[in-house]
C-alpha cells in the first residue's frame, strides 16, 4: 500500500530534513493503523532522538497529525485504519512571531 508522509513546522528535522516521503507499507494480516505506522516510522525513518517524535505510543505533545487534511482526533487517532494513497502530515506547532 502506497501512502504519502509529510512533515512541517520543524518535525522534518527528525526525518533527515525531508518534508515529504512516499512510502510503501508491506501487506500484513491485520489492517495498518496509524499506531502501527508510528512504530514503522521509528524503525525505518527516524534518524535519532525518537523521544522528540514519540511518547507513550503516540506523537509527543506539540505535534498535530492530519490525515488528508483532517485532524486525526476526528479519525480515531492511533486507531485510524490507513487507506491506500492517504496523505499523513505531522506538523510541529510554531511559537515564534
Amino acid at each position: 500500500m502506497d501512502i504519502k508522509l509529510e512533515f512541517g513546522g520543524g518535525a522534518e528535522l527528525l526525518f533527515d530534513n525531508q518534508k515529504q516521503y512516499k512510502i510503501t507499507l508491506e501487506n500484513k494480516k491485520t489492517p495498518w493503523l496509524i499506531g502501527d505506522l508510528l512504530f514503522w516510522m521509528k524503525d525505518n525513518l527516524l534518524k535519532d532522538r525518537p523521544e522528540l517524535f514519540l511518547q507513550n505510543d503516540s506523537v509527543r505533545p506539540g505535534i498535530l497529525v492530519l490525515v488528508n487534511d483532517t485532524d486525526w482526533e476526528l479519525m480515531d487517532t492511533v486507531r485510524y485504519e490507513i487507506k491506500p494513497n492517504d496523505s499523513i502530515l505531522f506538523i510541529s506547532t510554531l511559537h515564534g512571531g
Partner: protein
Amino acid sequence: MCEETIATLIKDIKSLKEQIREKEQLLAAHLKVQSNVPCKYSEALQTNEIARYSRQMLVDEVGLAGQISLKASKVLIVGAGGLGCPAAVYLAGAGVGQITIVDYDEVELSNLHRQILHSEDDVGASKVHSAYDKLHSLNRSIQIIPLKMHVNSASISQLMSDNSYDVVIDGSDNVATRYLLNDACVLNKMPLVSGSALQTEAQLTVYNYNNGPCYRCLFPVPPPPDTVKSCGDGGVLGPVPGVIGCLQALETIKILTKSDGVLAGRFLLFDGSTSRFRTATLRPRSPECAVCGHHPTVKELQDYEQFCGAGAHDKVVSIDILRSVDHINPQQLEKVLEDSLVVDVRDQAQYRMCHLPKTVNIPYGEILKAEGAKKFSDCLEAAGKREVYFLCRRGNDSQRALDHLKQVFSGSNVNFFNVKGGLEAYSHNVDADFPIY
C-alpha cells in the same frame, strides 16, 4: 568630539519625539471631541469616515453596519513584532475604534526586516511607542493605546478585568504566553486570533470562537522545551509572518463584522518555501478540556512559565554546567588562537555569516553524533594541539559540546576550555566589529 555630537543629537531627537508624541495625544483627544459630528447625509458615521472607509464599505462583508461595528470595537494585540505590526497596520487602516498594543521589548536592528512599524530611527526605543507613532500617523481618528508591559498572569488578568476586548490577537513569541492568552480568552469569553511563524513556515487559527476548539483542546500538554525554536535561533523570512499578520487582521475584521467564514475550527498552514497554503479541519471544542471543557480545572490564570517549563520570552537563558577553571574570558582568546585548536560549535549558516579567523566549525548537533566526534579527533590530530577551546554564539552550546567530548575522550591528555559568554561577549569586550545578531 564627533561621537559626542552624535550622542547629543540622538538624545535630543529622542526627547523631541517624546514631546511630539505627548502633544499629538493631546491634540487627538481635542480633535476627537470637536469632530464627533455625524454626517447629515448618512447614519452614525462622519463625512470623512465615509470617504475614508468607502472602499471596504462597498464590500458586502462590511457595509455601513460593519463599519459602525469596527468603529465601536476594541482589539488587543499582544506583541508588536513580525505578526503584530502588519496586523495593527491593517486594523488601524480599517478604522477599528480602539487598538491596544502590548509589548515590553525595545526595537533592535535585527527586527526591522519583518517588524514593519519600526524604522532605523526607532532602534533602542520601545516597540509600542514606535508602533504608536506609525499607527497614529496612519489614522488619527482612532484610539491607539501603547502599553509597555510584561505579559504575565497578573498583568493580563488586570487588563482584561478593566477592559472588554472584542478580539485578542496573539502575536507573541513563546509557548508560555500562548497558553496564558488562551486561558485568559476562554475565561473572559473573547476570541483569540492566533498566528505564529518560523523560518519559511507559519500557522494561523482562531481559538475559542463559534464552538471551535481552544489552544488547550488541541494541545493539552505543552511541548518539551528543547523542541521549541525561536526566531532568534531558527531565523525567519520577513514576509512569512507578514502574510500571517495580514491574515490575522482579516480574521479580526470578519469577527468584528460578524461575517461567516471565520477560520475557527480550522487550521491554516503556510509554507513560504513552496508557496503552499493548506487548511485542515480541526476537532471541535473538547468536553474534557482543562479550561473550556465541561468540568474545567483551570478557573483562573496560572504560572505559565512553570506549566511550560520555559520562560515567557524568546531569549536564551545562560547555563553554567562546567567548573570555573574550565572557562576562559573572551579577552584571553586572542593569545590562545595561535597555539590551540578553537572549535566554533554554531551551525554552518551562523558560522558562514561571521566567524573568528583560525577557528574550525563543528556544529554541536554533529558533535553529539559519532561522525562529529570523529571529525573533532581528526581536527585535533591534524592541528597537533593539546589545548582545545570551545566557542559558540552565547556560550551555552559550547559548554554542552565540551561536556560531551570530555566524556567521549576521557583519559586523553587533551585540555578542554570554554570561551565564556561566547561571541556575544567577544563583541562586547574585545571587538565590537564582530556582529551581534
